[in-house]
């Protein structure tokens, strides 16, 4: 029993990352019906950008290093949001009248460009890069499991960001405009909503969340690689589908469930089965409930 609780604890931690990245997938899907396969690579690029910035400003070992991580995190969120917005502006927006399948293929292309772009960039490249700062092992025990303060902070930060998005989409006028654009772009235009701007903002938010997840990945796991976006992208996509793609709460819920399922699965079968468990869960979900847990029609849609 306590073993199960441990796996659930680990799963929630893992799910926090999935959820953050899944939110970006889900929001973009909600507004454009586009599965943005490049989203995981925004996350990957963000990890490299934060690596470089942290290296440039130097973090040392003082107590101030965590403040450095925080402001670098914010800067990276803005940069990644900007990158996502730029991708939308240069690639997806000119294709707005094209079939959605064309956009998806463009997204796959963009994903390749970003991965190979990082691969050929001097100082980045194909090797694993070691992050200049990692979270210390100190922490607290819960049951028989040890959690670090870093893990707790990561879960809390993810939770706050997700709540922020939930509030933004659910309560603010901008959020209502996002939902309006999601439902009927022409009608939204007729309300005086600048649809292109709203879509750009959605890309920005999705990118920024991926940026936050990337910085936290870097400082927690300590190393990054140019292919890291591919796996996380697929897992986050799975999380978004599990929860009901296009749904804000669903992305977070799907992230947590995927994290827990994967954590329990690897506890039973071993770590090399992580992706098998994740995609197995996806197949089962698509089989029994294709709309996801909070299927698009019933709950709040982005």
């Amino acid at each position: 029993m306590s073993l199960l609780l441990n796996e659930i604890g680990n799963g929630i931690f893992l799910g926090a990352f999935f959820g953050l990245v899944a939110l970006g997938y889900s929001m973009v899907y909600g507004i454009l019906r586009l599965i943005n396969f490049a989203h995981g690579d925004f996350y990957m690029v963000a990890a490299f950008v934060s690596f470089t910035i942290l290296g440039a400003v130097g973090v040392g070992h003082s107590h101030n290093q965590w403040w450095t991580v925080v402001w670098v995190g914010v800067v990276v969120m803005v940069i990644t949001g900007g990158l996502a917005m730029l991708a939308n502006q240069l690639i997806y927006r000119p294709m707005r009248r094209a079939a959605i399948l064309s956009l998806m293929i463009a997204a796959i292309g963009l994903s390749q460009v970003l991965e190979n772009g990082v691969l050929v960039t001097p100082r980045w490249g194909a090797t694993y890069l070691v992050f200049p700062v990692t979270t210390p092992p100190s922490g607290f025990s819960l049951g028989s499991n040890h959690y670090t303060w870093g893990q707790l902070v990561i879960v809390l930060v993810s939770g706050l960001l997700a709540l922020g998005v939930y509030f933004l989409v659910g309560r603010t006028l901008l959020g209502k405009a996002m939902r309006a654009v999601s439902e009927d772009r022409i009608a939204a235009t007729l309300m005086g909503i600048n649809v292109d701007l709203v879509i750009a903002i959605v890309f920005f938010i999705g990118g920024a969340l991926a940026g936050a997840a990337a910085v936290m990945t870097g400082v927690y796991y300590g190393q990054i690689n140019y292919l890291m976006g591919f796996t996380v992208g697929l897992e986050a996509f799975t999380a978004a589908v599990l929860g009901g793609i296009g749904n804000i709460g669903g992305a977070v819920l799907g992230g947590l469930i995927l994290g827990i399922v994967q954590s329990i699965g690897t506890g039973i079968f071993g770590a090399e089965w992580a992706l098998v468990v994740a995609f197995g869960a996806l197949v089962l979900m698509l089989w029994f409930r294709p709309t996801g847990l909070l299927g698009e029609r019933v709950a709040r849609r982005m």
Partner: protein
Amino acid sequence: MKALELSGVSVYYGAVRGAEDVTLDVDEGEIVALLGANGAGKSTLLKAISGIIHPRRGSIAFFGDDLGKLSAHRRVSRGLVHVPEGRRIFTTLTIGENLELGAYGTQHSRTERAQRLEEVLGLFPLLKQHFQRLAGTLSGGEQQVLAIGRAMMSNPRVLMIDEPSLGLDPQKVDIVYDMLEEVSALGTTVLLVEQNVSLALEIASRAYVLQQGSVVLSGPSASLVGDPRLADAYLGKAGGAKD
């Protein structure tokens, strides 16, 4: 003052003609009807005026200013609002949220918007009653009331409305038309697209009749009632004289 002035407007969907050389005007405070059979180009003209599509030729002026290629959402903030065919309310949003979005295009402050909301709810009490409900749960007539209420949230100078009676039972049609008269009484100029001729001519002071994208007949409502050319336009007979 002319609220709307179209001169020589032609609209094409690719190679397909939607409207050809249409010239018409709407005076401030007037209710003007655009009549014609299905596919005559009525909705096309409204879309061109609201900026969803851009005409290939001709110009559209709003209170004397040429709208040119001004984007659709900017036209709303100028006070030109279009209630599209089929109402197109946001079904997954609440009534209240739909209304709030109606004021999105205005530069109004939060308090101004709240005040406007009270005014609109005062005008259309039905909306107040269902404020928290999802708009998709409303009946067709209620949805039309919401669509008009939503449009009125921006306090428009010109309200264009496309087929407000479509799919409604006669009782609901009366309610909607009463609303339009109220809107007009508030000083809002109305451009009405309607297939139901007698209904439209009842509240409009003037009307234009479209056939195959062109104006074939126009004049004061009273003179059009009973004009045989009007029936011809609907029955698709060619040769309705251009006046």
